[in-house]
């Protein structure tokens, strides 16, 4: 990742925040999470981290085995 990649991501995020807090300020709040500001940012980030850690944990717990697991007797 070069510096300008990060700048681009920052700009995109700012645009979405502008949309969320200015353009969509009066958008009807249909779900409980509609009351949490920047919810989808959190959901994307925390969700991704959780998926990686929980899956890896489950993998170590009982899912992952050596490649010859089914061939070995």
């Amino acid at each position, binding site marked *: 990742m070069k510096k300008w990649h990060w700048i681009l991501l920052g700009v995109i995020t700012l645009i979405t925040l502008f*949309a969320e807090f200015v353009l969509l300020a009066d958008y009807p709040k249909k779900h409980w999470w509609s009351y949490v500001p920047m919810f989808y940012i959190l*959901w994307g980030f925390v969700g991704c*981290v959780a998926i990686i850690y929980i899956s890896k944990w*489950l993998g170590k717990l009982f*899912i992952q085995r050596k490649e010859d697991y089914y061939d070995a007797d």
Partner: protein
Amino acid sequence: MQISMFIAPAYYMILGALVLPLLPKQIRAGSFMLFPLIALITIWSFPEGYLIKADFLNYQLIIGEFSRLNRIFGTIFSIIAIIGGVYSYHLKEKGQQSAALLYAGGALGVTFAGDYFTLFIFWELMAVASTYLVWARRTNESINAGMRYLIVHLFGGSLLLAGIILNISNTGSIIITSLTPDGSLSSWLILLGVALNTAIPPLHAWLADAYPKATVTGAVFLSAFTTKSAVLILIKIFAGWEVLIFFGVMMALYGVVYAVLANDIREILAYHIISQVGYMVAGVGIGTEMAINGTTAHAFSHILYKALLFMGAGVVLHTTGRSKLTELGGIAKKQPITLWLYMIGAFSISGFPLFNGFISKSMVVSAAGEAHFDTAMLLLLLASVGTFLHTGLKLPYFTWWSKSKEEIEPTKPPVNMHIGMLLAAILCTLFGVYPTLLYDYLPFTVNYEPYTIYHLTESVQILTFTFIAFWLLRKKLEGEPTVALDTDWFYRKPAQFVQRVFVDGVEAAFNFIETVSMDFSQKLIRVSRNPLMLFNKSEEERDYDPDLHRATTHLLLMLIILSFAVFYIFSLII
């Protein structure tokens, strides 16, 4: 039977499967595309609502039912068969080409079937034809996986058949109609049979087991037909069964977890079929018009981008001979066309705006929200985080961009492979940019606008921050040379035990009894030759010789008869 039954779209594909091997080599691959094309034209040449009927025994079969729902599925099945034909144009093997057409024919047959009998015949045809696409890779692994795949599907077919027979005996009708969740055994058996083909956990393991082991071109067809034709049957029979919402959401996340652990690129894609089909199953469970539209649209989009992704992974396997993340990397500059066409598929499946995943996935998710299934909606959004994470980031990053342990020199793929990918990529983008091209043909009128500021904000925020989290934790996602245990464990691991008890054990018992009985008969033969050996040890050395004992026996008999005669005469005198 009327002649008209032979004009159903499925028959053109099956005709193709029969004719193709007879054609000269030069025109064979080119002719492949002709048959799905004719089928596609046939689908649209019948007026909406038209029925092709045929009499069979005491029942009336509906071979072709041209409803809006069936048509849209039939259309995408035909389109993907054409694209698959382009992608496999270089293939010289007759068997694979024929099996692919037969498989597509089965899918079209299931799609347009209006009665259970027709449905079942084509259902089984699909199972058999698709197995060949796994076997055709001809490695030990694929032969074993193909056999497991076939057995599991025949088991699913039996459940379906049992359900169908019970249902017919209860209702007296073989017409496919929607069933109510009344808890009857027949409904549940049919649901189980269909759920197996839909790959709903725990009945899903065949998919992740067999698809990564299929041939490069076979996997493209496999990714399109079996699960999506089953989704169509779910829509027809089980729309509104709320239990499917739970299973749909569960499978959307299940695929995500396993995709983290998978190392083979086609296995990652296979687990993401399960995840994506989860959206469709949840949509069927919600059952509202919007949800059914969303499910249909998502099946349509999914077939396009998933075939594109499998085509991309297929090119990698074809040109490097490798398919494991641990063995790949550093080839981005060497195959930019494959990479960027793949990325269009990845953007589509991840739901990037302007690609077709965005216009269909968001419809299912919104339908969950509209019907007040908030938790389901939130979890489906979480699953889409996982989709982008694996298919859009992990897979391409570790396949193309990351540093490889050794220098890989991919060969040049046949140009038709790239053309096949390009066609799918064009369609993924086209439907993404002009959603009405698809929306106008959905089963119900669409009152949904995907490109609203709200949806765009939601998607861009989720995708951006998924990317940032991935980038920070990317080291954690490196492939590991392991296998992930799944529910196929229950029939793969005990298989050794079953083999020991029911094959090796039975064989050993048989051998033992054979030895014992042979031994016994040998002894019996020896004793029969000279029964005297039972009384006299010295007789064991020789066979029985009647002359040897004749004189003594004669004397003995004469003495007995004489004594009787003497006693008789004596009794007369007295």
